[in-house]
């Protein structure tokens, strides 16, 4: 190497002993090989295999077997599509399917609307919004179980604070047993769910809003577009990808998680709040029929796959 008389370069230090044994150096050398990408992927690949693929496959094969833990006399033979056939004539399954659709649609709609309003409001950077943001996001930190118990108490027909307020304000003649009436049980549960999970949308939408160039709004102002038009023509289209992702994730969460309904209504009264996830849970852990529960899970899985696919198609989001 030639050296420059005007050199402003400092000289390199030779390898020290530490450098020789430094594991980072070996990883560094390894990183220049084609194994590097696999090394990066190793932790997630191992976990995917261990806690996703294997359990999922195990659950799928259960759906083709007889597996009733409290009936060892029936054995654990393959029964092909027996469970799926039973599903066709299982009234509870169809009711659960319908209720799941109602539950998910209503909850996502409310959560999205409220989440969007909150995100738009918080995005204004008005004084105090930082504090409000933290406050509004708080429900999200309560575990489902705690939020469920808390609302069960607040909506309690004897001691509930909600009834008390509504009666005092004059909206209600007397205390109402929200979860005992099939016409209000689902609605009340949806409100609770929306209360608990709307910050999910707020968070994601707020992040999306920050990414919209303000020039667009200035241009729209000059063109004379009002707030509603701006929302419809700029904000929503620009948020399309975020909205699509958030909706899919939330739908997955709502379809798969029985916690809240389990605490609030256990599916009742009657079957009026019975949903698929709850039905699968009860089939597995109350009736010990793991085969049928597995089949229910497979159906949920397939429905979600179809939903995600159709939804992504419809919202024309380009994804890898």
């Amino acid at each position, binding site marked *: 190497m030639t050296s420059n008389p005007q050199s402003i370069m400092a000289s390199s230090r030779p390898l020290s002993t530490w450098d020789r044994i430094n594991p980072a150096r070996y*990883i*560094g050398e*390894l*990183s*220049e090989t084609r194994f590097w990408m*696999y090394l*990066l*992927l190793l*932790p*997630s*690949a191992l*976990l*995917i295999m*261990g*806690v*996703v693929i*294997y*359990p*999922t496959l*195990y*659950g799928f094969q259960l759906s083709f077997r007889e597996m009733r833990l409290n009936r060892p006399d029936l054995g654990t033979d393959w029964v092909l599509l027996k469970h799926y056939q039973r599903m066709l004539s299982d009234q509870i399954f169809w009711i659960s399917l319908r209720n799941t659709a109602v539950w998910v649609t209503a909850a996502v709609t409310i959560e999205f609307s*409220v989440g969007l*309003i*909150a995100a*738009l*409001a918080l995005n204004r950077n*008005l004084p105090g919004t930082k504090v*409000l943001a933290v*406050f*509004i996001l*708080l*429900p*999200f*930190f309560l*575990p*489902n*179980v*705690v939020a469920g*118990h808390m*609302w069960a108490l607040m909506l309690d027909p004897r*001691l509930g*604070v909600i009834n*008390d*307020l509504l009666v005092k304000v004059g909206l209600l003649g007397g205390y109402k047993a929200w979860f005992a009436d099939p016409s209000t049980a689902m609605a009340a549960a949806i409100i609770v769910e929306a*209360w608990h999970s709307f910050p999910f949308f707020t968070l994601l939408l707020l992040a999306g809003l920050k990414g919209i160039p303000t020039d667009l709004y200035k241009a729209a102002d000059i063109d004379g577009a009002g*707030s509603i038009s701006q929302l419809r023509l700029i904000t929503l289209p620009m948020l399309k990808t975020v909205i699509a992702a958030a909706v899919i*994730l939330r739908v*997955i969460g709502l379809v*798969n998680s*029985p*916690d809240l309904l389990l605490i609030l209504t256990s599916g009742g009264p009657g079957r009026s709040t019975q949903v698929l996830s709850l039905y*699968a849970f009860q089939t*597995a852990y109350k009736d010990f029929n793991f085969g049928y*529960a*597995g089949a229910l*899970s497979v159906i*949920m*899985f397939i429905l979600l*796959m179809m939903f995600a696919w159709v939804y992504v198609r419809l919202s024309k989001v380009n994804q*890898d």
Partner: protein
Amino acid sequence: MASRSLQSRFSLGRFVVFAALAFAVCFYGIPLLWLFMAGTRSEASLFSDAPFTIGSWAAFSQTWTNLTSYNNFQIGTWAANSAIYSVGGVLLSLVASIPGGYALALSEFPGRKLILIMTMIAMITPSTAVVLPIFLEMNLLGLNNTYAGLILASGFFPFGVYLAYVYFSTSLPKGVMDSARVDGCNRFELFTRIALPLARPIVALVAFFSFLAIWSNYFLAFVLLSDDKALQFTGGADGAGERFGGAE
């Protein structure tokens, strides 16, 4: 004229914003306020007094004493356990999802698509369906009822892989990466010294979401742990909620 209509529209917008915030505060704030207040009131007061009564300091300290004395400060153990599981799970989910998303975003290799699809599948799989197989698997590994078992089981956060993947494939400045190569980073250093510091927001976001997921995943924790002392907080709290045994 024009400025006037602009003015009125602005104030209308402002009104809508404040109305929305006021609604949010009422609908979302009141229950939380009530929850806090409940902690300051005695059992009797909860039964009889108006819902929004602030109790006494004595009642609060009584509640606190009840809390801490319940089954020999079990609540403290639960909270500490929750913290250990959550932190452990979050760390593991970061170790898995950040490098994973980085690799998926930055390179083309056989099996890449497959891993992306598996990640999607992982997001969709109903949790009730996998809890039992996971339990059996952990049992096989001898990890039932251990910190490690639950942390392993809750440490894969597919959404995190996806977030990291999207971030790294859209937001990494190519120039900076090239520059670091020229400056002498090997690919490992490229990841640790350049990409990771840049990805701080996404690391925080993944940590946040996976924390929430683990924190509220009561059922998995419940099935995987049996030792009462190892119970996670959310599990323990629910147990404490049911007062009577057997035939209630």
